[in-house]
């Protein structure tokens, strides 16, 4: 690919694959959570919100360690893996996806939750008075109105997964083409003093982050214009 050596383009493609899959899964998983958190009156919704937000505060290595135990034969991961004859979900792309989903969850839930909350009760009430069942009202009114939140969540979730390091280190096992993602590859290049490769990949990540931040402010501007 572009005449790059495998130990440069394989981490890149692996990372893009991981980030894309994680983002798609997160959009599906985060939406009902964000909806419930935005609308719930129960006192324990804040507890749930805090649990969801834990990955924001926990060091990735702590998260990684607990994941390692959970993904292994001692935890549910082992039970799931045995369905296809494996012992553990660690050291696999699947394990990385699970870890990334948990790790990036708050980054996707938060913007979507805020978008739903900003909408208020009125649009859903109006929709109900216009014969829309809660399901129809959700898809025809809430989701379109919360679109900037979805966009922000997707961008943040994607970018956050691309930048993941400590977590992957803990549960990945550094297997080329399977779990050796971009951040780990750069780390390895630095450890072994392979500066040109390290520079190339790191510079690429800087450019990528810049593009992410730009698109975020673009989305925010558009969100602001729609709201006024």
């Amino acid at each position, binding site marked *: 690919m572009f005449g790059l050596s495998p130990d440069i383009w394989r981490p890149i493609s692996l990372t893009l694959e991981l980030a894309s899959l994680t983002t798609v899964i997160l959009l599906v998983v985060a939406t009902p959570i964000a909806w419930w958190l935005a609308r719930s009156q129960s006192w324990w919704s804040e507890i749930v919100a805090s649990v969801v937000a834990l990955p924001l505060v926990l060091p990735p290595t702590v998260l990684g*360690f607990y994941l*390692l*135990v959970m*993904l*292994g*034969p*001692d935890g549910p991961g*082992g039970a799931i893996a045995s369905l296809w004859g*494996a*012992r*553990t979900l*660690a*050291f696999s792309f699947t394990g990385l996806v699970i870890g990334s989903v948990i790790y990036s969850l708050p980054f996707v839930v938060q913007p979507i939750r805020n978008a739903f909350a900003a909408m208020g009760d009125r649009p859903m009430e109006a929709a109900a008075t216009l014969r829309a069942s809660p399901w129809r009202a959700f898809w025809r009114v809430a989701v379109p109105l919360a679109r900037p939140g979805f966009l922000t969540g997707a961008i943040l979730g994607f970018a956050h997964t691309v930048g993941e390091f400590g977590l992957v*280190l*803990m549960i990945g*096992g*550094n*297997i080329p083409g399977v779990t050796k993602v971009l951040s780990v590859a750069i*780390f*390895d290049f*630095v*450890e*072994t*003093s392979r500066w040109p490769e390290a520079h190339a990949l790191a510079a690429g990540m800087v450019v990528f982050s810049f593009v992410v931040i730009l698109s975020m402010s673009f989305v925010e501007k558009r969100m602001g214009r729609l709201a006024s």
Partner: protein
Amino acid sequence: MRSFAQAMIMALILALTSALPARAGSTHVAVAANFMQTATTIAAAFKAATGHKAVLSFGASGGLFMQITQGAPYEILLSADQDWPRKAVEAGLALGETRFTYAIGALVLWSRDGRATLGDEALRAGDFRKIAIANPASAPYGQAALETLEALKLAAVLAPKIVQGASIAQTFQFAETGNAELAFVALSQVINRTDGGRWLVPQSLYKPLLQDAVLLNTGQANDAAGAFMAFLKSPPARALIQRQGYETGGAR
């Protein structure tokens, strides 16, 4: 009032300094991850013996070297091999004449269940999914593990099953949590444990894990640093080191 304040200040200074013997200092030591537990007990003994404090930082030897080249405030490097201290001397960051072998490591194959006791038989049987080694690029024990596998002519066969830990501690974690059935770790990590199965890898299968220490330029003027280097060679320190599963050859 003024004399009262003066008296208080004097008392404060006295209180602070009386706890320490005269001229007590501290030194910052970078320690290879596999030597973590041992280094901690040595530091305690060092403090008791000399009153000097040794502040320890742990990591993979390669990573520590990287940090030293970038000006990390370490004064002594306790590496997991001989290469990194030598490179430090060559880079002009350390004093060549202070380099000596402080410990000789032993490689161990460990498993959470009992299978590792079968040693190379367990490896040949191949009845496992994952075997963990430390990243050979930055951890000498990982390099030693690879050498062992090559010597046993199993490197190619087992390559798909190898997973790498970023450090020797992480490598051990993989096996401890059961994610990898086998792991190549340092003897010092398991010497005080009774669980699991272990196989002391014959020295003939890998290049000796000579672990060298060197005084860095930053520690040259620090008495505490020099005292630590000396303490490492002393009989009490050696006894501690041996108790943790290392050999201590004579100083070079």
